Structures are given as structure tokens and as C-alpha cells.
């Protein structure tokens, strides 16, 4: 095995040594062809897919391939080609797995990707929790799963496992259908606001798709103005409209006025025993239809 590697190494140096990355001290020559000799499409730890991505654009001065090729990210790795003293090739200077400290891995990526959506990375919950860029991103494949609508959710639920089941509940945003992504609402690289939401506040986040609920309204519903999540579970619920609990009991957790708001609702209000208008169809919203706020001068009770 060792002889085969040496033969391969000499072949690589002979073929590509003068053509691409100059043999700076510590750097392997012939990058990336020398690397792809082993890590090609069908090789071990295949990396040829990078050539279909912006990271593999030699003509783009911002691309790592334009400077030191694979070693722009993996560091000077001549020993990876020459050192087999342990019986297998020495590790590249930087590997994007548990062998390299996360901070060191991430520093490589941040060298180019510190601005724009990553401005808030340092100090963000994922950074503080020791999540590596490579833990979510795959730069060696033509399509990075986490960057695509149909596959992103699979990456996120790998850690956020409870969300995977929630999005299959009866009422949920269309994540399972691939019509929405986690990053429509969250920026995993860090944000100014809570829960890694892309907007500063929960409601502003929701208003990005539900701008009609923004108002301000003449008659506000206090918990609605404060946070949509007071009543809705955005990752999925077994109740209508992603509500955190079923009506009318959800409404009764805040409304206990005389007569119907304080009535004890039970099976006596549903067919065949009965037909309470506070229980069937849209329950309380059969009358209080404007629970998100009303702009009608006669809408004080959120019925207009």
C-alpha cells in the first residue's frame, strides 16, 4: 500500500507539479488534481463535486480554488502526500471533522464568509454551542443540502429532532412538502433577535409572510400584538391553524367574563347532545372573527 501511494505521489508531482499551485513550503504541488487523484468522484471521501460549485471556480479570484486550491481551506498538506509513517497518509493540516478544533475549522470559513448573513455568527447560540460550519454545510458536493429548499429541513432536523415530527402534524407550515425552509424564519448563523429569527421580533418575523396582520389596528388583541407564539405553535400542532390548544378552551385561558366566556364547555355542546356555537366550526371565532385585530370603529369586541 505504501509503495502504491509513493508511486501515485510521484506521478502526481510529475504530472501537475509545475502547472497549478506552486510548491510553497509545506504545500503539496499539483493541487487540486493531485488531491482529486484520490478524492475524485468515486474515490475515498469524494470531493470532485466542489468543481461544480463556487468554491471550485479557479477563474474567480474570490474562490479558494483560485489561490491555493484545496489547501486554501485544508492548509499546507504536503505531508498528506508524503508521510505514511503511521501506516496511512498523514492528516491534512486542517480537517473538517472532530480531529480539528471547531474554532479552527470555522476560522477557515469565516476568512471569506464573515459578512452578510454571517455578521452575527461570533457569539451566536450555534457558535457558542460548538457547531462547526462543516457540521451543516457540504462544500465537496455539487449541491449543498442545507442550501436547497427541498433538502435543507433534513439537515436541521438531524439535531432538532422534535421538529421533524412536529412538521407532520395536522396543521403545520409546509416544511415537509419542501415549500418552506427553516431559514425562511431562522438564520442559524446568528441574528439580533431571539430564537435566531431573521427579524428582530417574533411578530415581525411572521409578518414577512403574513403582512396583513401587521396593522397597527384600532382594536388590538393584546397577546397578538405581543407575540404570535402566545397562541400559535409555528412548527406544527394537532389543532387547527397551528394553535397551541383547542378552542374554546384556549380562549378561556384568558377570558373568563360572565355568561358564555365562562361557560363549562363539554360533550353536551356537540352533536348529537347539543350544538354550541362556541364549540363547533370556528368556535369562538364564529363571532369574534377578528382575533388578530380590527380596524372597524365598531370592532371593540373583535367581531367587526
Amino acid at each position, binding site marked *: 500500500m505504501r509503495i502504491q501511494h509513493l508511486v501515485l505521489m510521484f506521478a502526481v508531482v510529475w504530472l501537475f507539479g509545475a502547472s497549478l499551485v506552486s510548491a510553497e513550503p509545506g504545500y503539496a504541488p499539483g493541487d487540486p488534481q493531485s488531491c482529486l487523484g484520490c478524492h475524485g468522484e468515486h474515490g475515498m471521501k469524494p470531493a470532485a463535486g466542489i*468543481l*461544480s460549485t463556487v468554491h*471550485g*471556480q*479557479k*477563474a474567480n479570484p474570490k474562490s479558494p*480554488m483560485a489561490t491555493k486550491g484545496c489547501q486554501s481551506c485544508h492548509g499546507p498538506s504536503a505531508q498528506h502526500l508524503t508521510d505514511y509513517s503511521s501506516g496511512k497518509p498523514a492528516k491534512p493540516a486542517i480537517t473538517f471533522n*472532530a480531529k480539528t478544533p471547531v474554532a479552527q475549522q470555522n476560522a477557515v470559513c469565516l476568512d471569506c464568509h464573515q*459578512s*452578510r448573513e454571517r*455578521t*452575527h455568527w461570533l*457569539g451566536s447560540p450555534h457558535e*457558542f*454551542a460548538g457547531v462547526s460550519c462543516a457540521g451543516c454545510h457540504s462544500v465537496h458536493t455539487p449541491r449543498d443540502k442545507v442550501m436547497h429548499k*427541498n433538502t435543507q429541513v433534513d439537515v436541521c432536523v438531524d439535531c432538532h*429532532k*422534535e421538529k421533524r*415530527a*412536529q412538521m*407532520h*402534524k*395536522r396543521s403545520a407550515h*409546509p416544511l415537509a*412538502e419542501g*415549500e418552506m425552509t427553516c431559514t425562511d424564519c431562522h438564520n442559524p448563523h446568528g441574528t*439580533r433577535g431571539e430564537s435566531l429569527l431573521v427579524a428582530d421580533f417574533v411578530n*415581525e418575523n411572521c409578518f*414577512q409572510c403574513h*403582512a396583513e396582520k*401587521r*396593522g*397597527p389596528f*384600532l382594536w388590538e388583541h393584546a397577546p397578538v400584538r405581543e407575540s404570535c407564539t402566545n397562541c400559535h405553535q409555528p412548527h406544527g400542532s394537532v389543532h387547527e391553524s397551528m394553535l397551541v*390548544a383547542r378552542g374554546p*378552551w384556549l380562549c*378561556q*385561558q*384568558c377570558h*373568563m*367574563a*360572565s*355568561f358564555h366566556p*365562562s361557560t363549562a364547555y*363539554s*360533550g*353536551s355542546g356537540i*352533536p348529537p347532545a347539543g350544538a354550541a*356555537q362556541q364549540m*363547533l*366550526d370556528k368556535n369562538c371565532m*364564529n*363571532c369574534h372573527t*377578528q382575533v388578530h385585530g380590527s*380596524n*372597524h370603529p*365598531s370592532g*371593540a369586541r373583535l*367581531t*367587526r
Partner: protein
Amino acid sequence: MKATIEQGNRLLNTCLLACSLLAPVAMAGEGVAGKLNIGLGYVTDEAFKFGEYNGLDNQGLYPILDFSLQSAANSRWSDADYWELSGNDLGLNSRELSFQWGQRFTAEYDEITHQRSSGGGSVFVDNDSSDLRLPANWTAATSTAGMAPFTLNELDESIKRSRLQLGYQLPAFGDWDLDFTFRHEVREGNRVRYGIIGNTGGNPRAVALPSPVDFTENALTVTASRAGEGFSLQGGYRLSLFENDHAAQSWDNPYAAIGGWDPAAGHPSGRGSIALEPDNRYQQVFTSLYYRLSKSASVHGSASYARMEQDERFLPYTINPALAVTTPRPRDSLEGQIDISRVGLTYQHRLTPRLSLRVNGAYEDRDNKTPRDLYIYIGGDSQDQDVAASSRARFNRPYSDTRTEVDAALRYRWQTGTELALSQSLQRVDRDYSEISRMEEAVSKLALSRRQSDSLQWRASYALERRDPSSYRGERSYYASHTDAYIASTPEAERFENHPLLRKYYLAERDRQKALAGLTWTPSANVQWGLSYHSTRDDYDKSELGLLQARTQGLNVDLSVIEEERFSWNSFFSVERIESEQAGHSFRGFAVTADIGDPGRAWEHDSEDSVKTLGSDLTLFRLWPKVDMTLSYLLSYAVSELETRTGSSLSAEAISPQGDKLIRLSAKFDYEHSSQLGVSVRIAHESYEVDNFSYDGVTADTMANVIALGRSSGDYSINWLALSFRYRF
């Protein structure tokens, strides 16, 4: 008929798109690569729930068309620019089309139709109108029981969302990157809301209203960012303009006048009107700065200032001209404005190579500057306006709040792979017009994780959140809403809306405990197990009425087995239980004080939702020569147990378990004839059963005072077949 027309439209659209695609395909030269996926699918039945978001909402044939065109890999190698044009689901109303030119320009067009319900109908003649009219021969009565059998006008409740988003990155502006994003979004369709005529708790009469949705939003974001050695800086501006083509929804009253209404409010002269969502505007400026103070310390600051505005012209107090309005509206429009400011600062310091500290502070202020005025409302378009001190003379309450938050976190990493994190945060919220003026919440968290070995990792965390309002005064919102004259006319013991013993759950004193534990075990390079548990328990110990306790527990197991070039198998199982307990007290309006002392009028309600989800995907590579097969299974099974218990003065009956069960089975076969040509066959079956008392057996006239749609919960059993040909070039 409607389905046939939609299918025709889809086929026509697909043909047009196919023709437009043939040109670039034909022109594809050496520098272009891509693939085309074209075929036909068939859905055996029609169900809104099955097609809720996926575009498969109609029975019958549908075209399959996906494509992508891009500069080839070898071209990307040698060119600084690259491009990609792709389209997915072009034969469905969930289609999307996108174009990317390098990192500079992106254009995305996306359509999605949300099927909200089907199977019912409205009593109105034209379901698409914002001015709903009854049939000329409508027979009115004071309740649905007295109405002659009526015909429902079929209604499919759906909203189509079309979104065009353009992004442009301007790279060369000195050291700055400039990003522009523009979004144009249109929502069209209808949704169902209810409208009532009536003015007290006893005399409202409601009817389901198909309400038109014609929303447009234009949004622009401009961001400038710059990054350098040890710093990054970002600033920008965001604008969103929302427009609704319909200011109001009006309808003919289908009910005859009843006691308490002005006779003119009844059928045929009576009408009702609701204000629809008003036009609004949102603007925000934002900035943030990251600066590395030293090799081990950094600071990150951010600030934003936003303004929401709404100034739609008010509707009149009533649409019925026969009703007397003696006091005009205080203003013609709201001039609503909320200013939102936020400042945040984070300091992070790696105190030693193993010990990290993060301190974070934030100040947020939502200042609702909307004018506060007195409105003497007319109850449900059914009465003359009150002239004396009245509960219908109400001040609007423009809620404001201010939040201050500080948190600190320490993380220590042992060489052995163990990590310990401790954090403590304090939040204070000050509110206007609320039952509590100040609320404080403290969160303490402990997290431990360990890489036990290369194959085993585990983590666990526990958090205790204590919410402590200054003092809960249930009558505060009552005083903020009513006039002094009305308050003076009310007995002092009854000056509240909700009984003072109630604690609204989002404001109440609360102890929350959150626990999380999980492990990942990789016994071999091909096999990975995952196990996790989460629990949240909320105790509202100070609440006598309202939510008393809530608890969520979940367990997740997943297994992944991948044998390269032979098979991959991914499975997961989740079980979640969500429980809550709440207490109430049934008050008769004339005897609130006496009733609260009567334990026979007390009630309790328990809710328990159990959800089991099982998913499995098995892919067998080269099952037969050149054939891959993927089998998928999904089960989502939810049961809700609801129980109401009452004191001796009340009565309650049991509710049978509610819930739903979704089963999805699919098999997909991919035949790779050559590296260029392939065929895919997909067969799927999906069944859905639901028990939901809200809709099961509820017809349009089941409720005495509500004319419903008579829609169904949506059980279905559907098969779906798709055949497509794939061509790569």
C-alpha cells in the same frame, strides 16, 4: 368543471413552458449542462388535505416538468461567472422557477396554493365578492331551524401565493458589499370568516362569509456590509408596503329581526359589514458591528429602529343607514404608528483556552404612538348608537412594551471531550394597558455534553425559568377601556371584564422547567443511532382561574444505516405528549359575586394530546441492474383526550377522543438507462382519517344561530402514480 378547467390551464402552461425550454436546450453547447425531467402523474381522488400545499389538489392527470440548465463544471473552472436556471413542479400550482448568475444576481418565482377547506358552501350568490348577496327568494327566520331548506353555493377555500424575488449583490463599492433584495408578492383567493349581526351576548346571529383575498406586498431590503481583519460592519434599510384591494366585507343579513335589534337590521333590509385587513407600511433601519478586541475577546453590537404605520380610512360605525349615529367617529382614520427600537450588545471572551464567557444585553422598546380616542360602537350593525354612559363607549388601547434583558454564559471544555455550560438571564418587561405593569423573568440553565468516545456522544440540559409579575390586576384593562361615566355607573365589585381571579397565561406567574437529553451512538462507520428526550413543564401556582399547568414530553429515536452503493435506511420514531389543566368558573352576569363563592359553578378542563410519528426511508441501490428503489413510510397518529369536570350546579358530558391518522406509503423506482437517460416510476398511497367534532356531522344549519359551511373534516384515501423521463446533457 372547475377542476377540468384548472387541468386544462395546467397543461397549457406546461406546454408553453416546455416550448420555452426547448430553445435553450437546443442551444445548449459545450459550456452548458443540465437535466430535464418530463412525465405524467395521476391522482385518483380529490382531497383538500392531501393537496393542501403540494399542488395535487385535483383528481386526474397532471404534467410533470422539472429542468435545470447551468454552466458546466468545466466552464465554471475557467470562467469567473456561472449561471443556473431551474424549474420545479412546473406542471403544478406549486411551481417554482429560479435563475442565478454567479453570486451577483438571483431571481426566483414561486407559486404555492394553500387549500384551506372544501366540501362546503355558502348561502350567498357570489362567493368571490366582497359584497355578498342572498338569493332573491331567501326565506329568513330568527334561527336556522326556521329557515326553509336552502341551497349552498359550493366553495373551495384556497389562497394562491405568487412571489417574485430578485437579489443583486454589488461587489465593488470600495471595500463594501451592497445587497439589494426586492420581493413582489400577490395573494389571491378566498378565506372563510364569520360575520355577525347582534349587539349582546344573547342575540348575535352569524353566517359564514367567503371573503376575498387580494393582497399585494412589495418589499425592498438594501444591505451594506464590510468585513476586514478583526471586524465586520453591516447596515441597511428595509421597506414593506402591504395593500389589500378590499377595505370591507359586507353581506345581506339572512336572519329576520329578533328582540334587541332595530327592526331595520333584520332581513331583507339589514346588512352587516366587517373591516378587512388595512393597507400598512413597515420601515426599518438596522446596523451591527463586530469587533475583535484581542485574540481572545470580541464585542458585537447591533441596533435597529423600525416603524409600522397604518392609516386606512375608517368604515362608518354601521352599514345600515336606518340606524341612528349621534356621535361621529373621533377621526377619519387611525394614524396608527408603532415605533420599535432595539439595541443589543454582546461581549465574548475566551478567558482560557478552555473557558469561554459570553455576556449579552438587549433593550427593546415597542412604542405604540397610535392616538387613543373614544369610540361609541354599534353592536353588530343592529342597534342605534348609545347616547348615555355605556359599555359600548370604549377607548382603544395602543399597547406598548419595553424589554430589558441581560444574560451571561460560561462554557468550559475539558480535554476529555466534556463540555459544561452555565447561563443565567434576567428579563424585565414593562407594559401599558395590561393586567401587569412590570414582569420579571429569570432563566437559569445548565448544559453538559460529552464525547464519550469516537462512537458515542451525549448531551443533557436543564433550565429553570421563573416569571414573576409585579402584581396582577385583572381590572386594569377594564379601567383603560371604559369611560369614567360608565365605570361610575357600575357597582364597584363588578368593575372588571374577566374575573379578577383569572390569570392570563401569557402574563401569569409561572415556573417553567425544561429538560433535554440526547445521545448519538455510531457503533460502526455505517450505522448511527440517535435518542433524545425533551420535557417542558409549566406551573402556574398563583392562578386560581385560567391555565394551571402545562406539560410537554417527547421521545425521539432514529436510526441510519448506510452501506455505500448497496443501500441506505433512515428511520425515526417520535412520541410526544402535550398535557394541560385549566380551571374556570361559570358566572351568570347578574350574580358574579355570589357565583364565585359557589363551588358548584366551578369547572376544570384537562387536555391531553398524544402524537406518534414514524418515518422510514429505504433505498436499495442497483436492486436490479441499473435500477434503484426507494421505499418510504410515514405514520402520524394523534389522539386528543378532552375532559371537562364541573361542580354540582353545572353539568358536563364526555367527549369522545379526537384526533387524526395519516399514513403515507410510496415506492420509487429509478432506472438509469445510461448516464444521460433515465426513467422514474413512483407509486404512492396516502390515507387520512380524522375525528374532529368541530366539523363532523355539522351541517350548515346544525347550530341555531350560526349558518355554517357544512364542510367535512377531510377523510381521504388517495393513490398517486407518476412516470417521468430524465435526460441529462
